[in-house]
């Protein structure tokens, strides 16, 4: 038995879990307001553009989305197993690739702004 390399997966998962807990509820709240028709000034095109244009903004957005995606993907992988889906390697590959794709897309879009 050797030590597992699981930390590469688990550590971002835990970090992502923390990020989700701290950030996602309030962000959902913001877009929910937009969905209800009241767009907060911070979500206007100009402010968003300014925010996403700044270096720090890019970093925050990328961090939140990438980590949350990773965390969700990993959790979903475990959940699939718990639900009786035993093709763990396949599930893992699909989900982690999806999370990675989402993160790359995020990076690409951010670089375009």
């Amino acid at each position, binding site marked *: 038995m050797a030590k597992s390399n699981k930390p590469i997966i688990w550590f971002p998962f835990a970090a992502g879990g923390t990020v989700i*807990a701290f950030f*996602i509820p309030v*962000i959902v709240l913001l877009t929910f307001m937009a969905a209800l028709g009241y767009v907060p000034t911070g979500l206007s095109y100009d*402010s968003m553009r300014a925010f996403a244009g700044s270096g720090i903004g890019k970093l925050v957005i990328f961090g939140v989305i990438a980590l949350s995606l990773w965390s969700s993907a990993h959790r979903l992988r475990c*959940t699939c197993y718990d639900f009786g889906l035993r093709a763990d390697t396949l599930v893992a590959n699909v989900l982690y690739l999806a999370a990675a794709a989402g993160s790359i897309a995020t990076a690409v879009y951010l670089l375009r702004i």
Partner: protein
Amino acid sequence: MGEEMSRNLGAGAAREPQSPPRAGRVGGAGPLIREVPPTTWFFRHPRYLRYMAREITCIFVGAYCVLLVLGLHSLAAGQPSYEAFLVALRSPASIIFHLLALAASFYHAATWFNATQKAMPIQLGEEFVPGNLISGAHYVAWAALSIVILFLAGVF
């Protein structure tokens, strides 16, 4: 019985008896292994349902992140596309999805903060800091952070 049962006739590597080595049995069929029903086990006890509920939040959080990526895509594509994205948010499906995501993310946050006291106990001097204090501090920080973000976003 309703539950699957199968006999263990010396199979099951992980559960083979260990030391001391045991000789064959006197007849009889040997121990009975009651398999865990792989797809329905979580109905056996409410605590497993609570666990599954926590795990399932990830579906909504994940989906919501995809929505954010889409938003970012529209933002990068210029104002008209971004405005269209904002309008699209108003669909009933989006509203329902938001409600679910909101519930899921809050549930996730609560379970996560409650867990911090287990994952990161703090010992000051001899005593451990009471777990509720650790979790409580997280809740306070969370509330403060959320208010700051709402403020920066111009809600107040």
